[in-house]
């Protein structure tokens, strides 16, 4: 059974969480809430290790509670909620506004971004001074409307290493093999799995279904993974 450890970025040791809830959407920003038996308030860039799952994020909020602190960590630099810098482009490739959006927010693009999407040319693009995440969603939504990409499933998300990925979903097979179905709601396309490791990731294929979003709840006794299947 994996334990969840929170440590400052670059450090080799950290604090174990008595409870960790890690939410990973297929489109958007992962975040985690950890209960730590400590009176020290973590801050700044941190790393979360949950078995094979390594996450790089930033402490967003932290508060004291009985016997410890409760910490919310947001992926990457945690600034995609900030207003984007307004910019206008004439005939840009998708990478240009996306790269500027990420960089202006203190984030960086993943080298694994889909080149076929990144190099697609738009007639024009206007970035407004609204939330950066909303702008990225709008950009990818517009790209997904391009006729040549209409049949593909496009997505974007902050990866575990904190970088921004965008592109066509390839739906690789999930690495999770050791699991049991604890609960299922077929009417909602939701599964709850009992697992030994938090391995299920968004954008993968599990039980011949596409995994949309995932929430891992890790306690010292068990790990439950709630899976929202893509419709």
């Amino acid at each position, binding site marked *: 059974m994996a334990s969840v450890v929170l440590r400052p970025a670059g450090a080799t040791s950290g604090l174990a969480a008595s409870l960790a809830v890690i939410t990973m959407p297929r489109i958007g920003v992962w975040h985690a809430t950890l209960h730590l038996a400590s009176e020290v308030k973590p801050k700044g860039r941190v790393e979360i290790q949950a078995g094979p799952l390594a996450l790089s994020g930033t402490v967003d909020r932290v508060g004291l509670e009985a016997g410890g602190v409760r910490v919310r960590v947001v992926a990457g630099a945690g600034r995609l909620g900030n*207003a984007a810098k*307004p*910019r*206008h482009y*004439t005939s840009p490739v998708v990478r240009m506004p996306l790269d500027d959006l990420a960089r202006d927010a203190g984030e960086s693009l993943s080298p694994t971004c889909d080149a076929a999407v990144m190099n697609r040319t*738009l*007639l*024009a*693009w*206007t*970035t*407004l*001074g*609204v*939330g950066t995440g*909303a*702008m990225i*969603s*709008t*950009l990818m*939504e*517009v790209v997904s*409307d391009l006729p040549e990409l209409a049949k593909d499933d496009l997505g974007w998300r902050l990866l575990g290493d904190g970088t921004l990925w965008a592109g066509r979903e390839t739906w690789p097979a999930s690495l999770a093999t050791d699991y049991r179905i604890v609960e299922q709601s077929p009417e909602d396309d939701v599964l709850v799995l009992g697992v030994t490791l938090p391995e299920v990731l968004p954008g993968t294929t599990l039980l011949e279904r596409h995994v949309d979003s995932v929430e891992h709840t890790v306690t010292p006794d068990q790990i439950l993974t709630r899976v929202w299947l893509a419709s």
Partner: protein
Amino acid sequence: MKCRLTGPLLALARHSDTRSPYRASYRARVVSQSADWLRVDVQPDDPLLPVMANVYLHHGVPGLRVKLRLRDEPPVFVMVGWLDGSPTKPFAAIWAPTSPSNVEALAFPTQDRLDLGQRDAIDAVIKGTAYREAEQEMNGAPLVGLAATYSAMALLCVGPLLPLKPGFTALAKAITTFEAKSETFLSEIVRTG
């Protein structure tokens, strides 16, 4: 102004339709115009919008092109928006009330008719080039003949008629010079009213 209770709800509502800001139009000052008059660079008033370059003008009149005279005062304002709410399709349209001196020229490249300053006008704008060519053709032979006559009369001015010679010579030259130059007197820039 943010409310902990309603703020997240509003954020959710905005997130559910991320294109909503692109369905509005915003006032912007025109800062420059392309050489073909078709596009403008604009500075929107709203700080949420960037300076936007190469934005196509949609005048609302098919084929119309307008050349602007852009100065600091009076400024020229237009509304900017996006077709279909798509951030890839910006356009500028709907001129704010502005000084007539901001409009330098109008052009209808595919039209052969232009009615400006009309109310109950009865005078038509003539087809200047065609009219002048016809007039020149009509005038050609008589004027050449008249110039030749004056030249011949100047040659006959000898003896007591000699003081008349400069006059006939000048008349012949004036006719020839005017007829040669007058074909270039057609304007490409038209003033109405």
